[in-house]
């Protein structure tokens, strides 16, 4: 039995040496040795013709119109108290301009994931829309779009700037 164990150990040691030796050796595959290969560049589509996107019908609105920006907390889409008064004055403007339709843009600050922020921006725009509806504005006068963090108003990296970007901004679509 003892002798058997010794032999077994011997076999194992030699075996592991063999496999270790093999491990270092690079196999030769005859089929690729000496093969020639033409290298071509990977397909790269030409950019589509630079036709500019048609200027949108949307017009920028100033504070004077009575449409105010609505601001939000980080990762939140709930309407703050300061946002309520901004939306109330927007609703007032809409009732004195009964034919006007507006588009509410939802925006985020640059922090966080782009895709998640697009969804968050939409929630902010929808929250502003919902609040305006609760103030008596008809839903068909209000549309929304989210730009997430892609269209910041302010481009510095500090809280002042980030707060300016966490907003719902209204533009007049038709008057």
């Amino acid at each position, binding site marked *: 039995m003892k002798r058997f164990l010794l032999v077994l150990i011997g076999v194992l040691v030699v075996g592991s040496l063999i496999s270790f030796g093999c491990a270092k*050796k690079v196999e030769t595959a005859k089929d690729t*040795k000496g093969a020639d*290969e033409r290298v071509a560049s990977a397909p*790269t589509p030409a*950019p589509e013709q630079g036709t500019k996107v048609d200027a949108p019908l949307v017009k920028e609105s100033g504070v004077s119109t009575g449409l105010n920006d609505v601001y939000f907390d980080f990762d939140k889409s709930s309407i703050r108290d300061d946002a309520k008064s901004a939306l109330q004055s927007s609703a007032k403007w809409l009732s004195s301009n009964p034919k006007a339709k507006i588009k509410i843009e939802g925006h985020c600050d640059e922090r966080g994931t782009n*895709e998640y922020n*697009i*969804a968050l921006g*939409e929630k902010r725009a929808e929250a502003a829309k919902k609040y305006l509806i609760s103030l008596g504005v008809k839903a068909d006068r209000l549309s929304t779009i*989210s730009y997430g963090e892609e269209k910041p108003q302010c481009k510095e990296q500090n809280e002042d700037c980030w707060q300016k970007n966490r907003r719902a901004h209204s533009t007049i679509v038709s008057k």
Partner: protein
Amino acid sequence: MKLLFSILAAVFFFSASAYAQDVNLGVIRAEAQKIPVTVFDISDEAGMKGLKDIARDVLNADLRRTQLFYLVDVEKLGIDIKVNSEPSKEVIKKMGSFGVSAAVWARLSLKGKELVLEGNLYDGVSGDNVMNKRYFGSEQLLRNMVHRFVDEIMLRYSGAKGIAGTRIAFVSDRSGDKEIYLMDYDGSNPKKITADRAIKLSPAWSPDGRWLAYTSYKDDNPDIYVLDLETSNRWKMLGFEGLNISPAWSPNGEHLAFTLSRDGNSEIYIVRRDGSDLRRLTYDPATDVSPSWSPNGREIVFNSDRGGTPQLYIMNADGTNARRLTFWGDYNTSPAWSPKGDKVAFVSRIDNRFRICTINPDGSFFMQLTDGKASDENPKWSPDGRHIVFSSNRNTRKDIYIMNADGSDAERLTSDGSNNASPSWSP
């Protein structure tokens, strides 16, 4: 007793010989122990200015990025690597005696107007030439030729396709608009492939590398477009009211998963590649975005704030059995399932910074990979699962970086002064 011995010996013999037939030997342990390789000076018979330096730099960088090889400086051992012709067997065997497993030597020459890169691989033990390949192409394709050579070496050693020939798609505002660009995996050759002058997001490669899906605001709404990289054809695939964002191809390329908000809030849907069979997978009043498929196509990891904060969830690919994956912290987003299936990379907000982290699909081994003053976002895996590409503002602007899958060796790929983000690695 004798019989038992014979059986044991036979079993050992057969298993050993089966092992010896495996071409991929010796690399299984490479994670822990890298293969020592020497690169000889490139012989330049083409005599074109600068080409030799490019070839050498690309060759060394490609070999280093494989994470398989350890480049040995044999000049310390008194071996001259500056050769003008093929290194002799004796020199290679001498290196082998010092433990160098393999040697690489390349030669540049001209054939007519074409550049030829001849790549050779030698076994350090026998000194034999075990690979000799010649790559033909124009001078501008020298980098690609070297990439092909290194991928061939990588295939030899690991049995897996290398990534030196892969590319990375990303979004850059360098032209003034957010357009999509392709660049080589080492950051060279950036090329613009869109020009609609609208905001672009989330380029996603199909598994066969032919199609790129992405979101564009071209028609004043975030819609999903598909670009055929071979024909340059592109079309709007999804243009529902509200969001059409975060496209992700299934591993067999048959389906696209994405987010729509047409039913009132962000939900995850899938559709067949031909646009048929649109199916909604999530039904939840919360935000569900950023799907990423498991490599076997059976599950999808996604981002949802259904629990109050953005966290990662995994569901079956038919939408059933959604369960929460991350529990730590209040902001975990941007999931990317690794090609081997063993990890999910994602972004976690830790101490008010965004970090690249990984977690096992069973919720164990939450690991933070990046650190520092800046924020890192948008992790995506290399096709071999050995690297992660991501965007970071560690140098003020957002730029594209790659790092090893364990967070080591971060390397900056873009530095043109614009913002570069939303990277996606080609197959």
